[in-house]
């Protein structure tokens, strides 16, 4: 067996991959070297057998379908518009719900702050019902603090003091009751009016549904045309 360089040359020579001068040199060596000639025959025989191997046909067609390659039907530009508007309106709708639930809490001061302000708590409470409620809840726990709203029911220990001021008491109580009533009415009104009106939310819902429906129809039509 010749060295591998010779074998490589013989293999390339068989395939016509040597240039003219290399081919001529190799041919002269083959004619004078029986071992090289034998190697050439071996390689040629091996190649010949491989070339005689019957070609096998594909057992089936390998043609591709659009589904196999994940192709989608071409859709008109309006499809993107409606899809986007549907998605955008959905996001807006979510925001409106979030705003309606968060807005009253954000607009009111913290309960501790309202109590600490003492007499100023009542006027603020009319503007912020949540704070009033919180303040009212805190009263039993903090009896030493000033309690403008809780003053309608004075403690029994101070009954004499209230008795001496009897002529003034009904007017003042009525005034305070009226104020409280007014505050509660305001509070109820604020509670009834959401930050984003319901009509807006309904409009957004309609936009979502219509846009999604149109986008769906466009997509289905495109698919039908494509197939």
């Amino acid at each position: 067996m010749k060295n591998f360089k010779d074998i490589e040359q013989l293999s390339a020579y068989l395939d016509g991959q040597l240039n003219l001068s290399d081919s001529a040199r190799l041919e002269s060596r083959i004619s004078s070297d029986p071992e090289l000639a034998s190697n050439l025959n071996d390689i040629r025989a091996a190649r010949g057998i491989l070339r005689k191997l019957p070609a096998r046909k594909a057992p089936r067609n390998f043609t591709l379908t659009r589904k196999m390659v994940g192709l989608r039907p071409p859709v008109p530009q309006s499809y993107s518009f409606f899809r986007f508007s549907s998605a955008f309106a959905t996001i807006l709708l979510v925001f409106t719900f979030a705003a309606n639930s968060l807005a009253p809490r954000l607009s009111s001061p913290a309960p501790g702050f309202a109590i600490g302000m003492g007499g100023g708590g009542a006027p603020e409470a009319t503007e912020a019902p949540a704070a009033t409620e919180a303040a009212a809840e805190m009263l039993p726990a903090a009896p030493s603090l000033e309690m403008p709203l809780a003053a309608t029911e004075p403690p029994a220990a101070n009954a004499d003091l209230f008795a001496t001021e009897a002529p003034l008491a009904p007017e003042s109580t009525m005034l305070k009751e009226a104020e409280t009533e007014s505050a509660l009415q305001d509070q109820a009104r604020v509670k009834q009016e959401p930050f984003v009106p319901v009509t807006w939310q309904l409009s957004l819902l309609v936009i979502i549904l219509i846009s999604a429906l149109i986008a769906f129809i466009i997509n289905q039509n495109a698919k039908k045309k494509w197939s």
Partner: protein
Amino acid sequence: MTGDYKAGKIESMDESSLIQTAQNGDLDSFNTLILHYQDAVFHTALRILSDEDSAEDAAQEAFISAFRSISSFRGGSFKAWLMRTVTNACYDELRRQKRRPTTPLEPETSDGEEMDSPKWLADPNMTPAEKSEADELEHAIQHCLNALPTDFRTVVVMADIQGMDYSEVAVAVHVPLGTIKSRLARARLRLRECLRSFEELLPSSFRLEGESNP
């Protein structure tokens, strides 16, 4: 859709224009190319993998992958580019087989013994003697091909069985031309040695007597 294509249609059409339209996403053009190359692709995969089902899977994977990456084809031999995809698919399949080795289900005779020459390999136009001869040859060659390292096998299948030239094979397996020459020479030598042991099994027309001309 599949039935609309006819093999050989590509002969009357310009391959490069089909490639171009396929690059623009036209699946029909690509399917025409598939019909032209599917036999070569399947045969290559079969010789590398030595299993018909695996070869089918690899060929299908190769065509899907080829369609998805056809925009990366920058001219040259389309067959070589396609063969590269097939080679990659075959290597993936071989790696998968290494990870999860399975026992091949050979067809059995009525006695429950495995068939040495499965019927599905036979050409229906051959006489029984020819069939037997061809089966023996095919088995002997495939046995020797399987004994080669995968890189050598791939090169020898492309050059000697598919008849691709060195530059095409170099593109297909993505190695320098010198490496192709070297691998091919080594593969042929090993095949020659291996086939020697099958010489008495081979029909007379396939004895290792060499070709008359280079």
